[in-house]
């Protein structure tokens, strides 16, 4: 077995198909439909950028001269920043378009906006939109690769990839791990992408929420649904908490934040039900004292929350690199 320079325990020695066969997709719209080796390939590619990002000089010229547009139709701070840093560290010209400043407010249709972005000859477009399926709609209308940075309650693929990378670096092979995802699964694109990603990589995935926040037919997605948090935590290797949106906390889906914390908040006591070395994760931003208590979130031995943010930049660099290889004429990527 070869020793991987980047030190990743599970992709070390893993053989990937040559050239574009390793990742034959034009866009990254979701995790659904990706093969396990395609996911692992992206994770392997991200490792080099984790290393680079830890150097004092964090720059490569791999994307020199390319234009990356971050078109965010929905507010975001951390994901936008993460994509912007990823693009800039690779030498691309990164332009951010916020919905608040765009002609969307003037009534322009999404298709017209897509055609406009396309005419500006972007080399990659990163899109976030509040409506499920909106990113695919745009991708069908543009000539360059599109990265989904979150569409409605559908998918947020780079979040799932950065979560998988975080787990893999801490726990090794994801296959066979028991991973509990708790919170507003119904409205969460993070939950969906993680379900697709982790089940594809062979993990046992549990989801936990009051039944009012669980979508129908979860059993068809190879996950086990729980509504008692204690049962869902039993023996888990990883506990992934989801953010509870404020607008769902005032009597519409659950009676109050304090009731939610009582039933579904991750506290130090509850965490004892999971494996003694269980990893705690959260996509952020956190509602401290609601879905997660501060002492758990801030425990450096158990919490991987800041590491997730770090892996986010590396994963996004890998995605931008891989998706633009055809355009840059990289050998084997025709």
């Amino acid at each position, binding site marked *: 077995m070869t020793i991987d320079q980047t030190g990743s325990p599970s992709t070390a020695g893993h053989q990937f198909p040559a050239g574009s066969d390793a990742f034959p997709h034009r866009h990254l719209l979701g995790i*659904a439909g990706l093969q396990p080796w395609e996911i692992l390939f992206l994770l392997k590619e991200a490792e080099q950028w984790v290393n680079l990002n830890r150097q004092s000089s964090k720059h490569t010229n791999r994307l020199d001269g390319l234009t990356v547009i971050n078109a965010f139709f929905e507010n975001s701070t951390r994901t936008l920043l993460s994509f912007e840093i990823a693009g800039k560290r690779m030498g691309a010209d990164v332009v951010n378009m916020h919905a608040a400043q765009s002609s969307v407010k003037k009534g322009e*249709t*999404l*298709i017209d906006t897509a055609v406009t972005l396309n005419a500006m000859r972007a080399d990659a477009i990163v899109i976030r*939109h509040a*409506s*499920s*399926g*909106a990113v*695919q*709609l745009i991708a069908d209308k543009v000539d360059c690769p599109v990265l989904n940075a979150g*569409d*409605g*309650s*559908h*998918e947020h693929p780079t979040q799932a990839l950065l979560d998988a990378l975080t787990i893999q670096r801490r726990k090794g092979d994801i296959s066979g791990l028991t991973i509990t995802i708790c919170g507003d699964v119904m409205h969460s*694109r993070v939950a*969906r992408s993680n379900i697709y990603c982790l089940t594809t990589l062979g993990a046992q995935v549990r989801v936990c929420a009051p039944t009012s926040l669980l*979508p*129908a*037919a*979860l059993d*068809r*997605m190879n996950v086990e649904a729980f509504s008692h948090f204690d049962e869902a935590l039993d023996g888990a290797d990883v506990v992934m908490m989801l953010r509870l949106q404020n607008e769902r906390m005032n009597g519409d889906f659950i009676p109050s934040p304090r009731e939610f914390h009582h039933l579904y908040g991750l506290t130090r006591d509850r965490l004892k039900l999971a494996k003694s070395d269980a990893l705690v994760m959260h996509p952020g931003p956190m509602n401290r004292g609601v879905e997660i208590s501060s002492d758990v979130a801030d425990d450096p031995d158990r919490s991987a929350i800041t590491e997730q943010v770090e892996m986010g930049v590396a994963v996004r660099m890998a995605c931008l690199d891989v998706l633009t290889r055809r355009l840059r004429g990289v050998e084997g990527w025709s």
Partner: protein
Amino acid sequence: MKQIFTNAQVLVSGKDIPQASNITVDGDRISQIGAEISDNGYTQIDCNGALMAPGIVDLGVFAIDKPAFHFGGITRAALMPDQSPVLDLPAMIKHNASEGKPDLWSHPIAAATKGLAGAELAEIGLMKQAGARAVSTGRSWIADSGIMLKLLHYCRSLDMPVIVHSEDRGLTAGAAATSGETATRLGLSSAPASAEALSIARDIALVRESGAKVHFRQVTTAQGLDLIRQAKADGLPVTCGITPAHLFLSDIAISDFRTFAKLSPPLRSEEDRMACLEAVKDGTIDVISSGHDPRGPEDKRLPFAEAEFGMAGAETLLALSLNLVRDGYIDLCRLFELLSTSPARILGVQAGQIAKGFEADLILVDLDAPWQIDTRKMAAAAGNTPFDKLPVQGRVRAIYKGGKAL
């Protein structure tokens, strides 16, 4: 004008199989039916052995779209009140009743409440005088059971049928799909299929109370159909309909966010679809209609949740429905009861069957003619069909409205 149609296989009202027969038409009415009628004094039209069926009466369309209707063999269409502006005044009924004449008759349906808002009753009596033959809640829902009961009592006294859309808005508000694996995978907001049964159960209770005639325009779930079946067994004056889309597609058709398959009520699970086919077979379903609602890219090329509901169904209605005959669910005569006779009866018009004294709305059908549904080549005002590229069989070769060839 006196005409005789000779050498046709005719779907004569009351007969189980097509009859080799001649038909005479005096003016716009059918005057004689029989194999031995003399053609003396009549202009002869030789049908060359083709199938002659009554023109289709499309109960509940959202637009008057003559090219699509004529392609599909539709000679009368009942227009839903969900127009802009809403059909809630006598003048609008009068205006829409004359639209399309003489080669297509449109029967505008009166809005049950002002602006279809579900609050105040519209001037139903005056709209009846202006030509409305039915009342409808449109695609909306009257949430207040008290108002619904008043509406049914009032329509009973006017002898007007009420056409309802069966979805409890408390459950379906904001939903873009039916709850299930597909909606979960796509991350679409969804409502449980029981939203339909809930609203049907209430309205059946109110029919029991009022005795009003209610037509449930599209019943698409096993639970909903069970309720209708029971109500009919109890002798209540209820009827129900469906579209070919709900008979031949399940919610899997919305995968990849295909907005052409975004319908109201939404496409259901495979189990519900099979229950719908059974209900066609056992006679629970009375009407098959197109729900014709042509929508251009400005309404459909949008993110799924924001796209409008509805499909262009008029020109594919017959060809798709013929699959029910080929698959052995019903025979040809029963099919035209569902497409023509029952809807005409609900509207109270003397049409929809080939019988003496009835309007000579006739179509000649080539049952075997193959063609392919193509969203880019539709006769309709827009090509929003979820059946794009589907090969089908059965095509209308000639259409006569009131005896006049179109």
